[in-house]
């Protein structure tokens, strides 16, 4: 399973990409999460300018099996949402780290970084969760 090294990860299986030269981050769900969810058929995302709060749900992902909340790994406001997912939600399955990104959030502070895991820690976290 692929966990890119340039991303940071949460226990709720979101990834965070720090964008250089911007005080914004990209957020998505991990390959592990999309695989657990199965075929994704609908993605509900916040609008641009909406505020998101760390550890609170900001959207939901519907698979044929179930609906799951997506938790914000950061606090801030949404500067862009991946509107392409409205028509092609399956991009989250096919390419969770690139085309399947969910939102771009302008962060208030960088405090969140301490809460996140790097790729190696996340892989270990999943292994323990599987057991």
């Amino acid at each position, binding site marked *: 399973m692929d966990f890119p090294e340039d991303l940071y990860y949460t226990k709720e299986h979101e990834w965070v990409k720090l964008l250089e030269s911007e005080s914004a981050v990209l957020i998505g769900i991990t390959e592990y999460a999309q695989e657990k969810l*199965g*075929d994704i*058929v*609908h993605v*509900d995302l916040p609008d641009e300018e909406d505020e998101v709060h760390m550890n609170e749900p900001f959207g*939901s992902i519907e698979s*044929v*099996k*179930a609906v799951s909340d997506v938790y914000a790994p950061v606090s801030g406001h949404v500067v862009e949402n991946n509107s392409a997912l*409205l028509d092609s939600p399956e991009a989250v399955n096919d390419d969770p780290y690139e085309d399947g990104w969910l939102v771009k959030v302008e962060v208030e502070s960088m405090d969140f970084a301490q809460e996140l895991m790097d790729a190696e820690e996340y892989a270990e976290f999943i292994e323990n969760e599987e057991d």
Partner: protein
Amino acid sequence: MSQLLRTPVYNLHIQAKAKMVNFGGWEMPIQYSTGIIKEYEAVRNDMGLFDVSHMGEIEISGKDALAFCQKVCSNNVAKLKPGKIQYAAIIDHQAKMIDDCTLYCLSADKFLFVVNASHIQEVYDWFEENKASEEVEINNKSDDYALFALQGPKSDAFLSELVKRNLSETVRYYEFNVAQINDVACLISRTGYTGEDGFEIYFDSKDAAKLWAYFIEQGEPLGLKPIGLGARDLLRLEMGYLLSGQDFNKNTHVLEAGLSWVTKLDKGSFIGKDAVANLKEQGVKQRVRAFKLLGKGVPREGYTIWLDEDKTQKLGQVTSGSFSPQLKQGIGLAMLSTEPKLGSKLFVELRKDKLVMGEVCKPPFVKSSVKKN
């Protein structure tokens, strides 16, 4: 919690890397490795194989078998001839649903009820309790039988080849016959719960692993896939078929379940008849209805349905909901007050107070491909 029950094909599901879930006390595959949508597509376009060995088989035999079946069954069993099958409801004295079933006429004095896995004991006990005659024998054969469903447009040609017989001529819709498959004696019926042409195949459970492997080996080159409960739920919901324990339960009147079409008041006396007649006279206040969402979203079991956006009048709640891969929209069944006419608008409360407009529609959601001849 007690140990989950397993079908005789359990080990082969594990080998095929199926994800297993608890389904009514049974450990069943919800999906295999390629995912629910791919399985769904296999059934709609090619064919799929379902292990439904958890279903129950209760045999009724003896001189008074027909009279007994008439008593415990909503449909008119007298219309059945050997080799034919009926869909029916099993109801109590208040006409509340005990289960739905298919009923096979094996001979003039021998019938086979096929009931849902989680209701086997309940139905058996109910039958025993209502056995008024010594001339009826009731046997729970659920452990003896294994059952596979082979469904999809390629099933007829594939199975005809395996049994070396033209099945489109010899086994028509809701009929069955016997045949050998890979040296296993089988009862083959043209039935199923997917809306596709296909078969349900009954045989001795000790042959289950052998037969499953044979079907996969012979069918895979033709596009056959093993199918789990996830795809099965999508397929049956697109047809508007009821799921026991979800779209109806023991508190649901047979007319509320929308099963008046298999409840024959003119057939003579049967258990629950008066309660059916009474409700018919009073008028049914709520009934399972089909609806689809007009906006984005997926309805799920338990979501509230409103008449209006301001939520002043509640219409009912979703009993089954999902996303139709064919229509690319949310579809569902709901227990609704019967007022809304076909095409009338309703509002489904998804999550966090989010309402999405839908409309009442007539099932099936997608066109059935069964060959009713």
